[in-house]
C-alpha cells in the first residue's frame, strides 16, 4: 500500500489495484480499480506508474496517471511467484516463491535518474 498526496494505492489480492482519494479522510472515495491477471501482493509507485508484484504473472506495470482503468502497460515474466518488490535506482528487485529473487531493469523515463524515484509499498 502506498500513500501519495491525496491518494492511497491499495491492493486487493484478487481485484488488483485500487486508487482511493483520501483528500477528505472522513469520506474516502474509490477513484479507480485496475485488475491484474494474477494475485497482487505489493505495489511500488514510480512517477505515474505502478509496479505490481503479481503472483503467477510476474511484474506488472500500470499507468495510473489518468485515474481511469487502463490496460497493462508492461509485463516482465519471472521464474518464481512474485510476492514482493522494491526499486533501487533503475532496477526492480522481486521476491519470489520457489525462486529467490530477480533483478529487472525498469528504466522507464520517469525513473531514469539516480537514486530512488518512487515510493515503496508497505
Amino acid at each position, binding site marked *: *500500500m*502506498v*500513500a*501519495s*498526496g491525496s491518494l*492511497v494505492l*491499495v*491492493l486487493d489480492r484478487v481485484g488488483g489495484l485500487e486508487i*482511493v482519494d*483520501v483528500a477528505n*479522510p472522513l469520506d*474516502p472515495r474509490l477513484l479507480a480499480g485496475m485488475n491484474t491477471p494474477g494475485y497482487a501482493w505489493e505495489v511500488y509507485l514510480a512517477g505515474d*506508474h505502478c509496479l505490481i508484484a503479481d503472483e503467477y504473472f510476474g*511484474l506488472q*506495470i500500470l499507468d495510473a496517471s489518468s485515474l481511469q482503468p487502463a490496460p497493462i*502497460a*508492461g*509485463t*516482465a*515474466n*519471472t*521464474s*518464481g511467484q512474485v*510476492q*514482493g*518488490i*522494491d*526499486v*533501487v*535506482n533503475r*532496477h526492480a*528487485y*522481486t*521476491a*519470489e*516463491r*520457489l*525462486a*529467490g*529473487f*530477480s*533483478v*529487472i*531493469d*525498469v*528504466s*522507464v*523515463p520517469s525513473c531514469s535518474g539516480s*537514486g530512488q524515484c518512487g515510493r*515503496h*509499498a*508497505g
Partner: protein
Amino acid sequence: MNRPSTRSLSTPLLALAVIAVALQVVTADCIDYGSLLHWTGGIQTPYFAWTVVGDSDHVYLGDPQNGLYVVDITDPGSPKIVGHLPMPGQSHDREVAGDYLYCADWVEGMQVINVADPTNPGWVGHLSLPGSCNGLTLRDNYVYLANRDLGLCVVDVSDPSSPTLVESEPSLGSPWKVAVDGTHAFVSEHANGLSICPPEP
C-alpha cells in the same frame, strides 16, 4: 566579400530537428513498457523469498523459513548473497533506514537488526507483541505495525535497542498493511477495506 550561406544548411537541419523532436514527443506519449523491461539478473535462495526492501547497495530478502538474506547489488547483473541472519518468525514486511532494518516478524513481534556491516547482520532490539505482525512502515522515529490482535501499533524506535509500544488502535478489525503520510495512517484490513487513523502517537 560573400559570406557563406548558413540558411541553406540550417533549413534541412532545422527540419530534421523538428522531426526528431516530434518523434520524441510521440515516443514519450506512446511508451511501450513491455519493450523496456529487461531481466537483468537473479539469485536462488535456499527456500524462497517473499519480501524485499533495498537501499543503495543492498537488498534485504525475507525468507519465511530461513530468515534474512543480505544481497549485494553493486552490480545488479550479478547479485551476491553477502550476509544471513536466521529469524525466529516468518519475516514479513520490513523497512531499512540508516544502519537499521525493522522487520514485522509475524508471531514474533518486531525485530530491529543492525545492518551496518552487511556481511554480519545482528539483532539489536526486539518487541514482543500478541497476535501476528504483517504490515510495517517507518516514519521518523516511529514504526507503524499492522497487528492482527492489537490493530495498528505505533512503536517508538528512537532507541533501536529498546523499541517501545506507545499506542495501539484495536478497533481495527484485522489489519494487513499500513502506510503513513504526514497527516494520517492508512490501514488495509482483511475483507474490511481501508481505515484511516490519526498517526500521531
